């Protein structure tokens, strides 16, 4: 029998949820507000919240100084490219591990995850030298390869978890009906795993979009994405917080909007199998 939820409990839960939500969102809101202030108002003490002379000057300056569209397109190509290639590799890999596990499957999964435990800077120089020799420095394709590789363990793990929730009997039934391996994966497995794949895809795009170590270290002028665009407005000698906030807002806006519209899929995918 389900436990009755009183109105009081409901109100308390709602208040807590809103408080936590506002706390988490506040830094982003503050960045957005600061982007509309003058540099002097941005550092005012006590801080000014809403009542100041709103200005678009920072956005105008940022537009004049930087080629936003080029950085934006680089971010789009790199994040979508690495996600699509990652999924193309991860779906068959996760299928094999979920439905045809071997003795070492668990160890392979753990080994893949362990690559995420290595600090990226540990492999920076070797990778930089490889990229230099292969002519991949400051290229989109180079970044797509790196981001695919660093996010692959997470994609495989997520898909493996979703696939494990799908009853093997359904796939066996398809095989008994004469489905080939290709048909089984494309026509039976994938339609059932769409929520999981969609959330993996979205999460991976977000991770790739926000990646700020490799995208800063392996790029110069041509393939630098929005992370480099933000970094170009940070200064240890000079107060440019309002311009930095404008650049940050412009960089996070696309992914924030995408996340807002796809939050249902994201939540559904991330909590899939969490409650039984």
């Amino acid at each position: 029998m389900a436990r009755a939820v009183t109105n009081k409990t409901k109100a308390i839960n709602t208040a807590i949820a809103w408080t936590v939500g506002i706390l988490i969102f506040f830094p982003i809101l503050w960045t957005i507000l600061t982007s509309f202030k003058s540099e002097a108002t941005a550092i005012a003490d006590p801080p000014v919240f809403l009542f100041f002379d709103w200005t678009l000057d920072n956005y105008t300056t940022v537009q004049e100084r930087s080629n936003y569209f080029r950085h934006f397109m680089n971010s789009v190509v790199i994040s979508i490219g690495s996600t699509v290639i990652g999924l193309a590799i991860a779906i068959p890999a996760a299928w094999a591990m979920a439905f045809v596990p071997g003795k070492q499957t668990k160890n392979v999964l753990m080994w893949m995850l362990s690559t995420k435990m290595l600090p990226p800077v540990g492999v920076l120089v070797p990778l930089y030298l490889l990229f230099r020799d292969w002519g991949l420095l400051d290229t989109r394709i180079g970044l797509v390869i790196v981001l695919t590789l660093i996010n692959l363990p997470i994609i495989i793990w997520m898909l493996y978890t979703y696939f494990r929730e799908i009853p093997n009997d359904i796939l066996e039934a398809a095989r008994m009906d004469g489905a080939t391996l290709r048909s089984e994966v494309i026509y039976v497995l994938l339609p059932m795993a769409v929520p999981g794949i969609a959330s993996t895809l979205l999460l991976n795009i977000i991770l790739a979009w926000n990646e700020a170590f490799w995208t800063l270290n392996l790029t110069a002028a041509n393939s630098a994405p929005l992370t480099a665009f933000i970094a170009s407005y940070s200064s240890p000698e000079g107060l440019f917080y309002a311009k930095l906030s404008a650049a940050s807002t412009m960089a996070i806006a696309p992914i924030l909007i995408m996340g807002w519209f796809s939050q249902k899929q994201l939540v559904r995918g991330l909590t899939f199998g969490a409650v039984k």
Partner: protein
Amino acid sequence: MTITRTLLGSAASLGLAAGLATTAVAQDNVTLTIATVNNGDMIRMQGLTDDFKEQYPNIDLEWVTLEENVLRQRVTQDIATSGGQFDVMTIGVYEVPIWAEQGWLTPLEDLPENYDTDDLLPSIREALSVDDQLFAAPFYGESAMVMYRTDLAEEAGVTIPDQPTWTDIKAAAEAMTDQDAGIYGICLRGKPGWGENMALIGAMANSYGARWFDMDWQAQFESETWNEVLTDYLDLMTNYGPPGAAANGFNENLSLFQQGKCGMWIDATVAASFVTDPDDSTVADSVGFAQFPNKEGVDNHGNWLWIWTLAVPAGSQKAEAAQQFVAWATSQDYTQLVAENEGWRAAPPGTRTSLYENEQYQEAAPFAEMTLNSINAVDTSAPAEGEIPYTGAQYVAIPEFQGIGTAVGQTFSAALAGQMDAEQALQSAQQLTQREIDRAGYGSD
């Protein structure tokens, strides 16, 4: 069949011709990728490059602007691995002699005749040369000085001399502090880092007569002089500094000073143009300047020198075009160009004698004379009192200094935050510095 062959042949010939034509054009047209730091003077330069393009229509410029620490890591990695990503690099005075001796920089031998290297300030030229050969061109230079509130000093009844001692500074800080009104007598850097708190404390140590190493590369933190330096720094900041000073760097102190919360601020001379800018500073018309303090009896005003320079990596395929750009950006004509477009106050400071002889600049920049005095007082070949085995200014010009300076800065910042006392911080600094310097093999010959 014959027609197909003819068409294919023609297409191939056309393709080849087009390819050759493209190669010919590519040889004429050059795109320079310039790595630079995000600060006001560099951004201003990016806005004025139409003038360069008029003079050199075959040279295009691509900018990679990064935050200082990211830039340093990025260009070091690229030059050390011959990555070839940048044709012109913005580097600091610390890197220039080290990289030049490694053979990583192109000597600037092809500067135009009218460049006038003799016009460069002597201390700047010396700091950027190895064996009298210039390896980087100075874009702007800075030393450190005292910026103080003339109105608060007057109210408190104190006078800050042009060449104050640390005793003068302490007395003025005490007199100006009014914590109930949110005014702190002195603001100094506390944020850990070799270019953060250690820039200030390193210069302060020089002005007390302390040194990092003796001639045998033995660290000197256990000396009485270092004890005085750190004790006085902690006393000043604890009694007359703002709360949470252990997290304050240049920007945080700039913000405090501009809002009228600091009586004095000792920091880079480049800050003078910010604190006297009426658009951003609430105290713009009541700022006075004085030279970096010294300890009584020590003839050393800190020896703080920082220069942002433009350098060309060794082995660059575009060295000629790169040197043309470097010469343009650091020339007297460029200074004139800035003055015409944005006024003399915005001219990049601290590199050329002619700027400080210019009456229009002297009039527009009230801090000009003190900036020049501060830079001229620097001797990078002998930054500290007594015999020392290193050169530098508020830093030691060895590759290991970044790591050592930052680690020592962390212990001093911890002392400022109250996590240890001065003696413990100095002991810790002594141990870690000696360990690193021994590991690197200094003094083992």
